[in-house]
């Protein structure tokens, strides 16, 4: 559905920073983009959201290059939840979620009954309905993150892109956010792409993993294939082991192990 085809991108100081990257995001997929800081994860996500234009190659949605899609039309298919969202304005939660309806309405200043119905639905799906009449600024970061996801879902997208949605959340809220994402992918049929630093959450909830290192694809495939101790050590420079917990399915838990105090990279 969303195809990244041999994409290259760079900044003025590093013109060949990212690329080549290719991946194909299908309906029902949950992709995790992982990698060290500065590997180009967020840049790739912005390219996929159409916020940046690739220098070479292209990003296509349903076969159509994002360059040739008007931004509002694109926004009706692709939702993007940035890492930082402006929190200084004291909007009510319900209004924040309703703002997700923006790309669907070109005229009129106020939302329709339909918009309200959709907002209620997505707030129910994200367990934020009981927060609806509270100002966004009074929420905890976990609650606020669920609200931003709800707003992204109110866009009724086919593709949902999130940049480190669980960065500052406690374990409980991390799990809650990933459960919502997984449900949207499997039940809602969305294509979900999430940039994250948490390898274990990625392994547990995502069907596909892209490991980036220094702007290049280090590994791509299922969590089982990508998260091998050798690959991860070569990318992160830290030895990791995979621990399996009896009675739990999945690939186990990735844990960094101490390799001596001298090692620093």
């Amino acid at each position, binding site marked *: 559905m969303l195809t990244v085809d041999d994409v290259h991108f760079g900044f003025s100081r590093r013109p060949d920073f990212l690329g080549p990257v290719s991946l194909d995001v299908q309906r029902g997929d949950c992709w995790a983009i992982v990698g060290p800081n500065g590997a180009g994860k967020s840049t790739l996500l912005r390219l996929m959201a159409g916020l940046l234009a690739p220098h070479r190659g292209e990003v296509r949605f349903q076969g159509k290059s994002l360059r040739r899609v008007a931004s509002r039309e694109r926004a*009706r298919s692709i939702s993007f939840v940035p890492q930082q969202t402006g929190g200084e304005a004291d909007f009510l939660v319900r209004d924040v979620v309703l703002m997700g309806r923006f790309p669907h309405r070109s005229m009129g200043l106020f939302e329709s009954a339909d918009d309200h119905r959709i907002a209620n639905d997505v707030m129910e799906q994200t367990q934020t309905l009981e927060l609806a009449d509270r100002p966004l600024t009074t929420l905890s970061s976990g609650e606020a993150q669920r609200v931003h996801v709800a707003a992204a879902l109110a866009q009724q997208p086919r593709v949902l892109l999130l940049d480190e949605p669980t960065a500052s959340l406690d374990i409980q809220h991390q799990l809650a956010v990933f459960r919502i994402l997984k449900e949207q992918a499997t039940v809602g049929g969305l294509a979900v792409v999430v940039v994250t630093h948490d390898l274990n959450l990625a392994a547990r909830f995502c069907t596909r993993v892209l490991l980036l290192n220094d702007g290049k694809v280090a590994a791509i495939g299922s969590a089982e294939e990508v998260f091998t101790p050798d690959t991860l050590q070569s990318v992160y420079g830290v030895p990791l082991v995979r621990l399996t917990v009896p009675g739990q399915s999945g690939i186990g838990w990735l844990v960094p192990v101490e390799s001596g105090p001298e090692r620093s990279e």
Partner: protein
Amino acid sequence: MNSPAPAPTSIKRYGLRLAVAAAGLAVLLIISPGVGVDSASYGWWDVWRARLGWEISQDELVGRPLADLNGDGVISAEERDGFVAVARTMFNLRFPRALLALQVGMTLALCGAVLQVLFRNPLATPYTLGIASGGALGALIALRLGWVVAVAGVSAIAASAFGGAILVVGLVFLIARGSGRLTSNELLLAGVTLGLFCSAMMMFVTAVSNERETFFIVRWMMGSLDAVRTIEGAMLLPMMLPAWIVLILFSRSLNQYRMGDELAAARGVNVSLLQGVCVGVCTLATAAVVAHCGPIGFVGLVVPHMVALVVGSDCRILLPASAIAGGAFLIICDWVSQLCMRVAGWVSGQQLGSATLPIGVVTAVVGVPIFLVLLRARRR
């Protein structure tokens, strides 16, 4: 719970209050011709009836001191005609003034609200960004050089003010562009610095003027609504209307913008276009205000803050509410300025004539306490 109760939308929450506020503003405008006159003789309704040419009977005027010129308790036909003539003059003196105060207040408050949103900075106003100073310098140069022509309803002074304002805005952007972000402190610093430069240049122009010009320039720089006729009030409209229309139409996009550049862009808002158009129309409108009324400060800073404390952040409500509050605020400030000079006249025993207190003084004196009280109320 399959069918949740209909949600209280912003428009339902605030629509009624907005309507009430707009009605209040209309009332202010309607009673404005009668404010500050001897109400035992002239009510606002008499002034309106005289203006509209409606019949005022002689019997009605019995017992009105100012109507009964010779004090014999009987109103003659001549006395009635005199009453009507004076009432008409009052209308022509006061109503255009109120109308101008309304437009100027609405525009300054609206622009202040928009710039605060746009720069994500509570200190951003047409003044802190140097727009007003640039406009004032442009207008002052035109005044000093005696450019008084008007083309298509836009005077040379207004055009020159717009030129000055756009020049300063352009420079501010050019200086601050190095930081790459519109919301940076560099932008405000550049604005304040260039504003100070413009002030210095205005002092220079004042210094090379003769006494009569200097007096006029100083009065103008204090900000005033004096010496306006209806036609001049109307001439401001071509420069202000774009701001009113564009900013209300863009209020949904501005809401998105408040949630962050990236989110807004991802939702299909053209962020740089939004910024450019908003700054452009605000510059145009501010230049119009400055050219005709001088730099009237404070409205653009305080009114949007006060309104935001009451109605919240939703631009669809915040912007019209700011405009309404700004218009009402300036009309009331103008009344206060007329009243102050009247009181000063009584106290000093001198006839201060038709002079009024500079409106800029009143906006500050009225606005600061209100703002401080609201600030305290919010902190609790």
